[in-house]
């Protein structure tokens, strides 16, 4: 639905409830998968895959990025890119220390 004056998208109640229910199902799923006790790298990978899916649903539909100007999506993606950069550079130090700082 577009108003005559400007192009604000109005999400339908059905859409919003659908996203809410999808988020609930994914929450149940992540708790269930955690209870299975998958071997080491796969437990965190599935948990993060589900969390990223939930985050995508919230950002795209609750925050309206799907209907919004692409510039706002770019800001979000940029923030995530710089976060990954920060973690990567930090890990280049901390993962390759002979001794973890003793007082830490």
């Amino acid at each position, binding site marked *: 639905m577009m*108003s005559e*004056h*400007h*192009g*604000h998208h*109005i*999400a339908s*109640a059905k859409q*919003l*409830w659908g*996203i*809410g229910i999808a*988020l*609930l199902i994914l*929450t149940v799923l*992540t*708790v269930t998968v*955690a209870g299975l006790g998958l071997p080491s790298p796969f*437990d*965190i990978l599935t*948990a*993060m895959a*589900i*969390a990223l899916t*939930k*985050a995508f649903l*919230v*950002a795209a*539909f*609750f*925050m309206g990025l799907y209907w*919004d*100007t692409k*510039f*706002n999506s770019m*800001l*979000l993606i*940029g*923030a*995530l890119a*710089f*976060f990954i950069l*920060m*973690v990567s550079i*930090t*890990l280049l130090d*901390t*993962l390759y220390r002979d001794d*973890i700082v003793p007082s*830490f």
Partner: protein
Amino acid sequence: MANHSATHPKHVHHHFVDSNQQFESAKLGMWVFLVNEILFFGGLFCAYIVFRAWYPELFTQAALELNTFWGAVNTVVLIGSSLTVAMAIRSAQNNQKRGLEINLLITILLACVFLVIKYFEYEHKLHLGIAPGSFWNPTPEIAAVLDHPKANIFFGIYYMMTAVHGLHVIIGIALMIWLYLRARKGHFNSEYYTPVEITGLYWHLVDLIWIFLFPLLYLIE
């Protein structure tokens, strides 16, 4: 000036071309603030990643002290509040004053439920001496199961991340009360609901952060 009021809606400031440009500018400003928020929490997530890489066994051991059930309940509570905020914006867009008020009230209520649950979680842990950093002073029963020398570090990260997140929830409640009072006075309609929209963006980010905190802190046993 008479010409001004004849051509512009009352809420549009002089330096904007029209209502839509003002709305889009406010939203852009909020997204820039959210970028700042993501990188602010990013520092805490970075600390989490570094310490989990150093002490993986600590994280699986210490997470047993966190109650998955109440963490999951709080996840559902926050998802519900994100839904009601989205519905509040929809109500404003459709000129539904009553719907806007009710959805804001439910959001405030759910945010309070979140904080009450968080309070009882903190209270239970602090009672057992599970405190962050140098305040770490566990009861003998806890010390027997959680004998990792860096256990206080895990809870330092846990308390810092959840408390900063909780602070955002408190600020969110204050903003929602402000929105509710303005909504009651009839300040918002389909032509002007910018404060509802950008507070909604803020609230969804608070939900987003929790979406990651929940599996990273509670679901790793």
